[in-house]
């Protein structure tokens, strides 16, 4: 991560959290269980809160504001990993994506918490306190799925499909840590695949962006909300 500038690191994390938060919020009102409706709505709210705080730090350096970073860039300018862009309205895949992302995010946050930049380290520590609850939730689901044959099969199918995307969330040494953790947790082998890395975008991001920025784009520049 050291090769990237501070702003780039902040925007990668912020964009991941914003887009994933948006995807999680798509479960509000329609999750298969009421408890999960509450959980995914709450997780979405947290992720978007993290994005806002990260954008604020980046915005100070760039001389802009958090809303401009969140909504005024073109889809290709977002730095999010393709994993968070995918629209997966199928429960096993949603859970697999949630767990893969939280596992990768924990590895990345551990590095940022140890940063010698006090603002980055402080905010990463704050975010990590909240993410601990997301990880608990994701782990609970992995236990639940692995407890039955059907659950294991469905988790495996979802992981097989998402694994190239999960690999693309991190790179270098951190990617290797991710592989080790995921391999240590699952009772089945992971497919040998090439990562779908950051910098490429799916068509699904474009559709999400159209919806996410529609209200802001409909108002005159400089409108106060």
């Amino acid at each position, binding site marked *: 991560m050291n090769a990237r500038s501070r702003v780039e690191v902040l925007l990668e994390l912020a964009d991941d959290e914003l887009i994933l938060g948006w995807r999680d919020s798509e479960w509000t009102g329609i999750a298969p269980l009421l408890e999960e409706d509450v959980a995914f709505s709450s997780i979405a709210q947290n992720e978007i809160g993290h994005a*806002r705080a990260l954008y604020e730090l980046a915005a100070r350096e760039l001389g802009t504001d958090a809303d401009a970073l969140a909504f005024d860039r073109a889809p290709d300018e977002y730095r999010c990993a393709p994993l968070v862009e995918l629209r997966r309205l199928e429960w096993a895949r949603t859970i697999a994506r949630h767990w893969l992302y939280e596992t990768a995010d924990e590895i990345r946050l551990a590095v940022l918490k140890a940063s010698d930049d006090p603002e980055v380290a402080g905010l990463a520590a704050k975010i990590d306190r909240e993410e601990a609850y997301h990880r608990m939730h994701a782990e609970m689901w992995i236990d639940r799925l692995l407890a039955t044959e059907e659950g294991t099969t469905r988790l495996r199918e979802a992981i097989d499909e998402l694994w190239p995307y999960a690999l693309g969330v991190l790179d270098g040494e951190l990617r290797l840590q991710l592989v080790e953790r995921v391999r240590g947790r699952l009772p089945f082998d992971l497919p040998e695949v090439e990562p779908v890395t950051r910098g490429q975008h799916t068509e699904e991001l474009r559709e999400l962006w159209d919806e996410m920025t529609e209200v802001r784009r409909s108002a005159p520049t400089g409108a106060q909300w």
Partner: protein
Amino acid sequence: MVSAEAVWDALAEIPDPEIPVISLVDLGVIQSVDVGERVHVRFTPTFLGCPALEVMKHALEEKIAELGAEPEIEVVLDDSWSTDRITAVGREKLRAAGFAPPAPREATAPRLVQLQTDAFRCPYCGSTETKLENIFGPTPCRLLRYCTSCRQPFEQFKTI
């Protein structure tokens, strides 16, 4: 010039926007008050996604303006707020309103097994025969528990 003590007293009158039984001072989100040319308040969010953040910030500004001073609110985006900063008075107010106060922060992040097995007291009947229902709740700061003694679901503050 207004005194720092007068500012603290005024801020202690601002209710939490979501749980009005407790004030922003009870909640421990005011880190410091420095009176100079302006009244500089360092304020820490509870959860970063808390929608009450902006409301709290405006309430702080209004209250300081009422004292005839110019407010300057600095939002501190680090790990310095913890649920351990909720005052003893604040914790008692929460309990009386039916919210179980948070467990103390530990060196490591809370784990699921602790939430499932540790003794958490029901704010209604005082029993520790309670179980975890959901690690998420109606707001980011709360989770859901159920008391098997008095058969009452209740909300527990998450440890942060």
